[in-house]
């Protein structure tokens, strides 16, 4: 049964209907207004950011010239300059951006990065320190500082800073990874293991974490576990050269049976085939290990060839000299063996001299003669970064040291710095 609608009701509806419509229109209008404000407030910067991202450097600089520039505009100018190979210009733009807004992590990162590119890690370290002063609880700033310490070879500080970054941001796999690599550099393989385990748990898809863990375990003598990690790393990056090299190296080190040695050989050969993907030091490692494979099989002629390749890649490495000498001896080439043994003895002596001189410097920081000797020993064995740092430290103490400054100059020329 349909309900009855009274006449009075019908009449009142006719009166109300036009006012309801106008209210609705008002509401819609208000809604549009709110949306416009929201767009203006929230979306416009995103749209503008898009615009800035796609704008050319000239356009950006034109805008800056007209308006004086805001933080984002200056940041993008920095980014564009950096992309176009102008780190100094980029550095300046990032700096100007940060004068306007110090809370922009990406601008800080850009400033650190471009300072390092244009002025070196020592200056970049200062920038990172400035960032950390501006934001003492920033994990990014701490990590950035750790990274600069690492590049400067200041491993204890790098380790500390990375550890702090990992505390500030426990979910940051990069911080744990850096902590792990610094621990490994200092020979702290237990700490390296812990750090890499954390990094690998956070970011299990990064083969570097698995490889770092494997390296730590290898140094701790836990070869079988290390092999497992290196296998994981190979699984994560099957077409990379580095993981398969690490796996082959460890397999050979731990090989107890011929099939294990054969597997090592296959992995190392794969790494060698991919040598264009590897840094020279890793290419050296591959050649050295392939020499070891041949030596294990008493295939001395092949061993000589591989060790010669290793020597060519790293002429100052004592392992190549030593094993090459032994291989030459086994093929009956006594003159070559004698030459390589002598070379090995020289390299060993220099290596020991470096350690002894470093101890002298440590015990007596004012011993500038020892500092100079140390710098020269580094230079003599192609440890150029270390040599440069040693000369620079000496010159900081004695700016007038003529031999140090001329030798540093020639070293910098040699390294193209």
């Amino acid at each position: 049964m349909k309900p009855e609608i009274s006449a009075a009701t019908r009449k009142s509806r006719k009166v109300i209907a036009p006012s309801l419509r106008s209210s609705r229109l008002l509401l819609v209008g208000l809604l549009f207004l709110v949306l416009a404000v929201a767009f203006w407030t929230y979306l416009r910067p995103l749209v503008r950011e898009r615009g800035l991202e796609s704008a050319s450097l000239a356009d950006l600089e034109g805008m800056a010239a007209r308006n004086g520039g805001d933080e984002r505009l200056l940041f993008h100018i920095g980014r564009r300059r950096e992309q176009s190979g102008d780190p100094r210009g980029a550095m300046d733009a990032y700096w100007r951006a940060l004068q306007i807004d110090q809370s922009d992590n990406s601008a800080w990162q850009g400033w650190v990065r471009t300072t390092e590119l244009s002025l070196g890690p020592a200056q970049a370290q200062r920038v990172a320190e400035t960032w950390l002063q501006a934001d003492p609880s920033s994990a990014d700033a701490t990590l950035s500082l750790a990274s600069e310490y690492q590049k400067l070879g200041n491993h204890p500080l790098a380790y500390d800073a990375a550890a702090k970054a990992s505390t500030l941001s426990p979910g940051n796999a990069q911080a744990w990874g850096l902590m792990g690599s610094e621990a490994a550099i200092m020979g702290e393989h237990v700490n390296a293991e812990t750090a890499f385990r954390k990094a690998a748990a956070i970011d299990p898809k990064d083969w570097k974490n698995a490889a770092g863990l494997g390296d730590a375990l290898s140094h701790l003598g836990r070869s079988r576990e290390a092999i497992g990690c290196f296998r994981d790393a190979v699984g994560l990056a099957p077409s990379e050269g580095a993981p398969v090299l690490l796996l082959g190296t460890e397999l050979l080190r731990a090989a107890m049976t011929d099939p294990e040695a054969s597997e090592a050989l296959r992995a190392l050969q794969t790494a060698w085939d991919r040598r264009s993907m590897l840094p020279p030091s890793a290419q050296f490692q591959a050649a050295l290990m392939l020499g070891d494979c041949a030596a294990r099989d008493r295939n001395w002629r092949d061993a000589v060839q591989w060790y010669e390749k290793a020597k060519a890649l790293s002429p100052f490495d004592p392992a190549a000299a030593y094993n090459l000498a032994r291989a030459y001896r086994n093929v009956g080439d006594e003159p070559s063996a004698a030459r390589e043994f002598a070379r090995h003895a020289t390299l060993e002596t220099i290596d020991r001299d470096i350690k002894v001189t470093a101890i002298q410097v440590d015990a007596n920081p004012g011993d500038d003669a020892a500092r100079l000797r140390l710098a020269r020993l580094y230079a003599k064995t192609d440890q150029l970064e270390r040599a440069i740092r040693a000369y620079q430290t000496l010159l900081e103490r004695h700016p007038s040291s003529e031999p140090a400054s001329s030798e540093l100059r020639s070293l910098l020329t040699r390294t193209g710095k």
Partner: protein
Amino acid sequence: MSSVPTRLPGISPTRLAICLAVIFGCTCVAGCSSARRDPARGFAANNPPSQGRADDVGGVRFVDRAPEAGLHYGWKIAGKRPCNLLQTIGNGCAFLDYNGDGNLDILLVGPRVALYRGDGAMRFTDVSHETGIDRLKGQFLGCATGDYDNDGWTDIYISGYRTGVLLHNEGGRALRDVTAEAGLKPQPWGTSAAFYDVDGDGLLDLYIGNYVRFGPETVPQLCSRGGHMTACGPLAYEPERGVLLRNLGHGRFRDVTREWGAEKVSGKALGVAFVPGERGEPVLAIANDEMPGDLLVWSGRSFTNRGETAGTGFSAAGKAYAGMGLDWGDYDNDGRLDLAVASFEDEAKLVFRNEGGDYFQEVSASLGVSEPSTPYVAFGEKWIDLDNDGWLDLVMANGHTSDNVADLDTLHTYRQRSLLFRNLEGKRMVEIGAQASPAIALPIVGRGLAVGDIDNDGRQDILLVDSEGAPVLLHNESRPTGHWLLVRLVGTRGNRDGYGAVVTAQGGGRTLTRHCHADGSYLSASDSRVHFGLASETRASIVVRWRNGRSESFGEMPVDHVVTLTEGAGKPTPAR
């Protein structure tokens, strides 16, 4: 005996640089050694590696019988703490039969030198006073044993810091200090020493290792590490080199170090051990601390150092290692004597397989020795057949050098457990120490180590020095064990101890090759009787190649006996 701050702990620079370069694109190389650790984490230095499965352990069992055996002795490091390098060196010990009764006696070296007479039934009586050995004064460190005048009584050389004493055995009644009349001088820092007839004249010559140039005035005494002062490593000091003393007869010795080419060594020796080479020529291995190891090969007139070319001087990576104690033994029963060398923490404890033709291959990793031993600072080390299965096992005494290592680095400990590796048929070594004995798992400041059969039951026992404690006398109570033969050699044309003789035992289709020696390990001397574990063989044919090159067959003999083989006799006589 490296200490921490001045060395690169176990990093193979090549490997490290490569790995980091490969993984992170960083080009760090060796040299960054300022070790730092996270105090929140504990290191597994004393956690048993727990490698050995039940069937790997077999019935191997050792019990510390020092207290009830009557060895009331203790070592204590004198002077201020933290210890300097001299304080960390530790001491040695010896198993010897000074009174010729056929039972092993025990010599303990320290600030107080003590001699204990054994009765063959696990009881030792302190005879230091009656033998006069308690009158010795000096900073004594180690010892070597041998009958240098062929009178049938074992004499003793005691090494030490700025000292060195030769004791003549007066018929098993007393030990007389004959240092001056023998022409021996105090050594700067005498460490391990060894008797051997180098020139084949039938008289035992003496080699004494020396460590570093160090004294109260030496700078630095301590090195800084992580804000703490601790003992410096050996690289902080100039090397001292060992001396070779020729036995001229009539109780006189002359320094022939230079004349016989023994001066061409690296220095910083901690372990020394002779061995007969492939052609019977004397070969002397010297383990040097963070210096290349030496392998002196006798060419008839002088020594040539072949450490580098032969491959024992360096690790497989071509790096010098921190050599401590060492020992020769044929672990794979291929007839060639292999070399084991103890080393510092984060370094593999090295096993060099003798491949013939003066060529050695480092096989520590593939043998399974590296992995469990890497965290430890090993000093004393000996080959020993634990269960008479005919395969030489390996024992190591461990303890850190830095007494304050816990302050510097909570991941490592000063006191460390010992390690016992069981040899699985020459192919693999499995660490079974914790399963074999709580005393082996007990952390000590391990230094000297000697092996010998104290109760003539055919099972080899072990004596350990705890630098900050009491001696540990590990009595071998393994069951079941194989058959055995313990051979005492008596030289008549050559040196009376038979040192340098190679003894082979044939039986059941295999030949075991052992050599007669008391040297090896760290600052210590062991039972010079040649021990054979014969597994299930009930008879064995013994052939002796004496130091003078003459081979002599003693025919087949029953097992489970101590026998004396006298040069030229051709048949065994029951041992005293």
